[in-house]
């Protein structure tokens, strides 16, 4: 299953809820959630820990727009909108954690 997150990990509990609830699969960080994919972000360790269960992707155009295109944390796969489409296609279902 694909879990799409669009909230900053530092201003709400959405990423935490997803990590605590979802059994595994793909996570895609878009919009303000892309901050979670940056080196030195406070959630880096938490996300690293989750990587055993999840494969974590980030929507690069959103990261680049926010001036952090060169700060991608290790282990996170960059995708463009085409890659976003591929992830939706590859998973049987998807959930946007609004």
């Amino acid at each position: 299953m694909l879990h799409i997150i669009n909230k900053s990990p530092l201003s709400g509990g959405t990423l935490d809820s997803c990590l605590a609830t979802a059994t595994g699969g793909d996570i895609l960080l878009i919009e303000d959630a892309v901050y979670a994919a940056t080196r030195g972000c406070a959630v880096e360790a938490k996300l690293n820990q989750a990587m055993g269960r999840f494969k974590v992707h980030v929507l690069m155009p959103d990261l680049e727009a926010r001036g952090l295109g060169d700060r991608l944390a290790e282990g996170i796969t960059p995708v463009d909108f085409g890659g976003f489409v591929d992830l939706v296609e590859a998973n049987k279902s998807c959930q946007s954690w609004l």
Partner: protein
Amino acid sequence: MKFGIVINEGPYQHQASDSAYLFAKAALAKGHEVWRVFFYHDGVNNASRLTEPPQDDRNIVARWSKLAEEHKVDLVVCVAAALRRGIKEENLAQGFRISGLGQLVEAGIKCDRLVTFGD
């Protein structure tokens, strides 16, 4: 593959409509079908033809209209949500139509994937 898209936020205020549009465009470029885009909550404001963004900004509403025309994408605005927010036939942009929530459920049934963009 047949995609359905749900948009829950209005244009400009939130990135949801932009993300949804770029997703739709990428899906079409890959040869997928975007069967329906359903506008709900404040998302119904994406259908207002009274929108006038500054010249140097993207025209979110016109962009959807163009996508609908070029790729036969069905743009459906929820009637209940639209009436609450003053979106009616008379100010509806080209390519959009107003209909019931059943159209959202139908998209869930008919499409291979349904992707929601919101807040």
